[in-house]
């Protein structure tokens, strides 16, 4: 039974005065993998949400087979055989795989006959190309297995068309290849059509048959992947031919060690050891990149250095002296931080942009008069000055920072953290969720800080970012630094294996261990 053709024609959607989609069409050929490419805010999610019934399009039609459909909510879409896998897992961590699958059905009987369900599930699992232990608790599954379970869930619900929203953002390259390869294989049997939202060209080139590109809510291009080059697709996404080559600028002036971490240990929120003796140093004038898959201790490492988590052991030295991230130490040793999700980690959303930009210096002149009285006027004045330099777009610097877009929040944080001399800079996924223009700008500013002598620690889940920026690369896995390399000589496949924890430095000779 082959899946029906999904066709959207001339879709339009506006939110207030903002036009999110304008005359966008998409055609998902039965049994194909279709890539939906675009920068952040290009309208990819809006398009998919219109198809899935979260939004009602203002204009245009959606057809499934020969029928026009108007799903009013995701349940309607589900009933039509449309399923969606979200960027973040929608599983109940404390329940088993079997329970999660049964739970996903829209209509459940008052009493569940678990014996019968278990038999049905076992029979279902036998027909699948991959297996997950039905009795395993979801919490125990690795990210890749969870992602597979999300896909299984859709198959269990008999979805014939599956939409995946950046499905590989939480996976290692090897896991991503496995999951995508598996989906690709299923489409070859003409059982499934896949629409995949992504911004990774590697995935488009490797697994997609066709591609639709959006730019600022408009259709920027479409075609068969086999007939397009990466640069053509990048041009469609960004409007002008953009050079995707790494513009690596190596460090020229590496000096004395600034940030020294020795045998650092710390526990995560559940009290489980997350850092198990991490040692490294970052010198003035270099960028040290830390590559790791989410959940391998790098978040805790950043939190310890930033003062958001207490270390349980080891030493942390800045400028050769013990460092505990107190306010005076932060100020005197000029340690700054660009955390991921700045609104969650570095801003108070109901305080104004100007107030947020004063977090580093509100207790010093000219913002504080006589150490005690706050000068709102000076805070505002300073913010207005920086607004121009950093191009922060906000209704006013007095508006709550929570009302700004992600890129502008990050620009405000950049303005605050890079103000004046910076001697140590900690950047953790500083570009997560931002568009190309913002990413380019942030990368340039991080390089500039390095060239002015800062010691930069860059933690990133994006290997390309690490390779493009870092002068040295550390790979972390399960709370340890397991591998060190330099970007010029880095072997990405090997790094991926270390990131996945399949390789230890002693057993480099056995690549089969990756499976």
């Amino acid at each position: 039974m082959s899946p029906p053709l999904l066709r959207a024609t001339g879709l339009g959607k506006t939110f207030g005065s903002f036009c999110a989609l304008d005359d966008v069409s998409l055609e998902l050929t039965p049994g194909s993998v279709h890539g939906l490419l675009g920068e952040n805010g290009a309208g990819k999610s809006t398009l998919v949400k219109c198809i899935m019934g979260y939004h009602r399009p203002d204009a245009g039609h959606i057809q499934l087979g020969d029928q026009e459909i108007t799903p009013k909510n995701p349940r309607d879409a589900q009933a039509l055989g449309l399923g969606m896998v979200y960027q973040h897992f929608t599983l109940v961590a404390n329940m088993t795989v079997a329970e999660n699958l049964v739970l996903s059905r829209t209509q459940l009987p008052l009493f569940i006959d678990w014996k019968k369900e278990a038999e049905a599930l076992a029979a279902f699992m036998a027909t699948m190309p991959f297996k997950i232990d039905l009795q395993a608790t979801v919490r125990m599954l690795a990210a890749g297995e969870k992602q597979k379970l999300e896909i299984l869930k859709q198959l269990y619900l008999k979805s014939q068309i599956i939409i995946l929203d950046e499905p590989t953002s939480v996976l290692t390259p090897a896991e991503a290849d496995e999951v995508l390869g598996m989906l690709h294989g299923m489409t070859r049997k003409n059982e499934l059509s896949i629409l995949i939202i992504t911004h990774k060209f590697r995935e488009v080139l490797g697994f997609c048959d066709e591609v639709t590109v959006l730019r600022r809510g408009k259709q920027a291009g479409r075609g068969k992947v086999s007939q397009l080059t990466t640069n053509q697709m990048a041009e469609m996404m960004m409007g002008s031919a953009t050079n995707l080559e790494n513009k690596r600028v190596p460090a020229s002036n590496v000096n004395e060690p600034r940030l020294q971490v020795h045998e650092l240990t710390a526990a995560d929120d559940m009290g489980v050891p997350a850092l198990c003796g991490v040692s490294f140093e970052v010198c003035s004038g270099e960028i040290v990149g830390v590559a790791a898959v989410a959940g391998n201790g790098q978040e805790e490492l950043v939190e310890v250095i930033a003062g958001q988590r207490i270390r349980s052991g080891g030493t942390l030295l800045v400028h050769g002296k013990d460092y505990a991230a107190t306010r005076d130490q932060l100020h005197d040793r000029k340690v700054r931080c660009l955390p991921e999700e700045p609104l969650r980690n570095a801003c108070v959303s109901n305080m104004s942009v100007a107030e947020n930009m004063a977090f580093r210096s509100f207790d010093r002149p000219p913002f504080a008069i006589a150490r005690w009285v706050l000068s709102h006027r000076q805070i505002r004045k300073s913010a207005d000055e920086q607004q121009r330099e950093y191009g922060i777009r906000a209704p006013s610097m007095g508006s709550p920072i929570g009302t700004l877009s992600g890129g502008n929040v990050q620009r405000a944080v950049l303005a605050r953290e890079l103000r004046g001399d910076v001697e140590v800079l900690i950047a953790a996924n500083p570009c997560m969720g931002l568009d190309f223009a913002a990413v380019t700008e942030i990368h340039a500013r991080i390089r500039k800080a390095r060239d002015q002598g800062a010691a930069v620690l860059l933690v990133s889940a994006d290997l390309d970012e690490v390779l493009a920026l870092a002068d040295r690369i550390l790979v972390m896995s399960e709370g340890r630094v397991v591998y060190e390399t330099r970007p010029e000589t880095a072997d990405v496949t090997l790094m991926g294996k270390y990131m996945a924890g399949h390789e230890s430095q002693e057993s480099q000779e056995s690549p089969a261990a990756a499976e």
Partner: protein
Amino acid sequence: MSQPASRLDFEAVLVPLAAIVVSLALFGVFILCNGVSASSVYYEMYRGAFGTWFSTQNSLTRAAPLMLTALCTALPAHLGLVVIGGEGALVLGALASVVAAHLLASFGPWVVLIGMGLTGAAVGALWLGMVGALRTLRGVNETISSLLMNYIAIGVFKQIVEGPMRDPASLNKPSTLPIGDANMLGSLPGMDVHWGLVYGVVACLFSYVLMRRTVFGFSARMVGGNVRAAQLSGISVTKRVIATCMLAGAAGGLAGMTEVAAIHGTANASLICGYGYAGILVAFLARQNPLAVIPVALLLGGISASGGLLQRSLSLPDATVNVLQGILFVVILASETFYGRWKRAPAATVPAPAASVVAEVA
């Protein structure tokens, strides 16, 4: 909670006003069930609260401690804490101020009053400082601990007043020895309202300025808005939480001192009359804004002052006004969901206390 002072939100006025109107309407239904005309109750309440000079002064007198106990909740709310320990701070502050009065009796009224105020505030500060310390050092829920510490405070208070400090002359109502007429807190010029009202207004103004215009207030708002952002900026969350809870407790302790020095002249069970709990209501009605506490305390003071008149002229139970207070509290909490519906800026809301707490207060 942290809108700039200059921006007076029309919804920050409209929503509480609408909540008051809805509460009065619901209260009217309750009154009708008792076979009394609602309009006569509203009229009597107005007369009993602000209708005459006498009743206005009565309302002002009741508003004074409410302003101070409201700060027990409103100040920690700036750090995102829901502290409801005003009653405990008040009774222990009152007890401590009596002790101070007796110890300093030989130095004359000025020294006695200053000593009473400082001691009352200090004991209140220590009491709620413990709540803050438990919260920040041991992770104990501040709402539950402050509620339970109220019971402990009342127990300690009774134990001491009925035991070691009992005046043998107080027969059917155990009290401490009086602080003496000479040491009583006087009335404001030309009024029958004591100086505690001025303490309350000044404390509210001070709190407002502290939270909006000082370095301390700025860092406290950072902690309240996002602990992670505060930590990233090297701000000690522990210090801010404990210091703010201590200020809150100091206000509560001062309320106890004024009740002793201006009203009762001694410490006895009359002090345990729910000003601490009513202060929670005031703080929420004022949306935790110290400036708004002042008018709201006047309103609530008026409502409680009118209870006696309802009893006398309509033979309704004295507790009728408590029903109105309870309705008000529930409606106010429910009205939190209406903020931000008319404009796009997200309204900062203080999390509502647990249902059990509401029941306790109502």
